[in-house]
């Protein structure tokens, strides 16, 4: 997986840090068919975790009902400028991606 498959932004606004994440993933349900009428196998993100300076802040379990190229916003009251936020996903085929961003 290339590092470009996640776009992240983490901005401190007042006392709240808003983290926006856009992942690149097909999120196939396993129920869709291709042009030749063959089922496209399920391929979807199952677990997303976010850490703040290495400490867990968010753990998400996902099913096939999250849209293609998943979008996620979450908010932290515990982050300061310069802190590191890391987001990691794992999918049902064992693929994974991780990316970090500094709070600005």
């Amino acid at each position, binding site marked *: 997986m290339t590092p470009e498959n996640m776009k992240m932004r983490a901005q401190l606004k007042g006392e*709240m840090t808003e983290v926006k994440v856009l992942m690149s993933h097909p999120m*196939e*349900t396993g*129920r*869709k*068919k291709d042009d030749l009428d063959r089922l*496209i196998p399920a391929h979807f993100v*199952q*677990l997303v975790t*976010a850490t*703040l300076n290495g*400490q*867990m*802040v*968010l*753990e*998400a*379990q*996902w*099913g*096939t*009902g*999250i*849209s*293609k190229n*998943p*979008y*996620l*916003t*979450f*908010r*932290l*009251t*515990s*982050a300061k400028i310069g802190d590191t936020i890391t987001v990691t996903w*794992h999918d049902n085929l*064992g693929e994974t991606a991780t990316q970090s961003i500094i709070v600005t």
Partner: protein
Amino acid sequence: MQRRSFIKLISGVFALVFTAPMNAFSALWNKAAFETTKINEAEKNLDINHEKLSHDILITVPDKAENGAIVQIEVKSNIPNTETISLFVENNPTPLIAHFKFSGGAEPFVVTRIKMAETSDIKVVVKAGSQYFTNAEHVIVLENGCG
């Protein structure tokens, strides 16, 4: 023979090393809750019970979704000590969409985009301590978004 047993040993070690983290991860994903076609089963597998209606769960969704493949949803819980937020689309083939667990200064707030197969209620369940709370919003889907 010795070489064979050595290879066997090595492949065993490899299998252990590479499957162990995968098993640990699989244990985190609630397969039974996500794969069931019944919302009651999904809730049961998440230990949700006796959920009470709460208007302290704020759900922001469009009244009508042009395309069910991408429906943006924002959920904010004003219930003290909110630990988890679960999203369900009642009329989807598999109703459980997502289960979020917050810790370490994360607000009980999330924005994401979900698929809706047809017009349906979106049900949100919040866990706070040993109690469960729920709220729902109805979304009309003009074009099916599930494959």
